[in-house]
């Protein structure tokens, strides 16, 4: 009996520690983004409005991981630096590429901060999409907010 309980506890632990990537691997990118946004709202009190595709997006492991990690990083930046009360997230497929936009209503990133990209992990994000020939565009308007557009083409392997 104790052996059985120990086994169960170990299984649960293993599952719990794997939960993060598991959400991504098993549920796909769309559900993982929805889940993370819900978690973010609970942790920060910043509302997230989501506009996600209703169909399951079939995306390879590398691209989903890149998109999800960038999304996590973007939300972390909003929580840390933006002083925003709301985020609008949109994900869609547009001319052979996954396009993810994250827009907040905070103070707006300054031009100098975009150029000093290492401070906000922007460099790291750009490096993540480089292998796919992707790009990240960032635009800030003072006291209006920041908009980030991440584009990951499907074509290149």
């Amino acid at each position: 009996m104790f052996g059985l309980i120990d086994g169960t506890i170990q299984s649960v632990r293993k599952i719990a520690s794997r939960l993060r990537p598991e959400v991504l691997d098993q549920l796909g990118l769309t559900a993982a983004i929805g889940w993370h946004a819900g978690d973010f709202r609970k942790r920060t009190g910043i509302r997230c409005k989501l506009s996600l595709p209703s169909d399951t997006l079939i995306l390879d492991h590398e691209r989903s991981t890149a998109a999800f990690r960038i999304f996590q990083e973007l939300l972390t930046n909003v929580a840390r630096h933006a002083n925003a009360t709301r985020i609008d997230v949109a994900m869609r497929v547009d001319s052979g590429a996954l396009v993810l936009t994250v827009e907040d209503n905070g103070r707006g990133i300054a031009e100098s901060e975009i150029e000093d990209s290492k401070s906000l992990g922007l460099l790291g994000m750009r490096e993540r999409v480089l292998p796919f020939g992707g790009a990240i565009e960032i635009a800030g308007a003072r006291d209006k907010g920041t908009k980030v557009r991440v584009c990951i083409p499907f074509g290149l392997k």
Partner: protein
Amino acid sequence: MRILIADDHAVVRRGLKEILASEHDMDVVGEAKNGDEALELVRKLDWDVAVLDFSMPGRSGVELIKEIKRRHPGRPVLVLSMLPEEAHAAQVFKAGGSGYINKESAGEELTAAIRKVANGGKYVSASFAEKLATDLAPDAEKPLHESLSDREYRVMWLLASGKQINHIAAELFLSPSTISTYRARILKKLKLTDNAALVRYAVKQQLI
């Protein structure tokens, strides 16, 4: 009824078999410990209902359900999962699955669910049915906090997290009196009287 089970944890497979053993008309004819094994058994064995774990090594989840349904469109697939069903029950049904059970309630619901799907029905747990009904409800039944503005929502969240007015003012670059005004407006909109009630509301609505 010939049942196929697939789960990567031996202890779960054992539990499932134990539950099914008490049903005289249900036989476990095969057990798989990952998605690829499950597909092989699906092909080799004669079975009536497949009971799958949603998350297994190798092929699993939506992909596995779709593959099984492609080969045997007429046979029901029931999905078990550790994750709460809000997370992906909809995906399971979209992929062609006939039912979804959270592992937590599998003990009570498994045999009923198998019978339901074996007869061509869909199995939806009471809690997921409630969520579906809530999603369909008209706007009038939206929770009160939906009527808060974005900034009111954030102030509400900070208050519910136990932050003092002065602290919130500093964090949002506003004056303490503005925050007090926000607080009064939030309490009115949520039909609450004090911060304790606010905390209780936030916890109940899972806002914090």
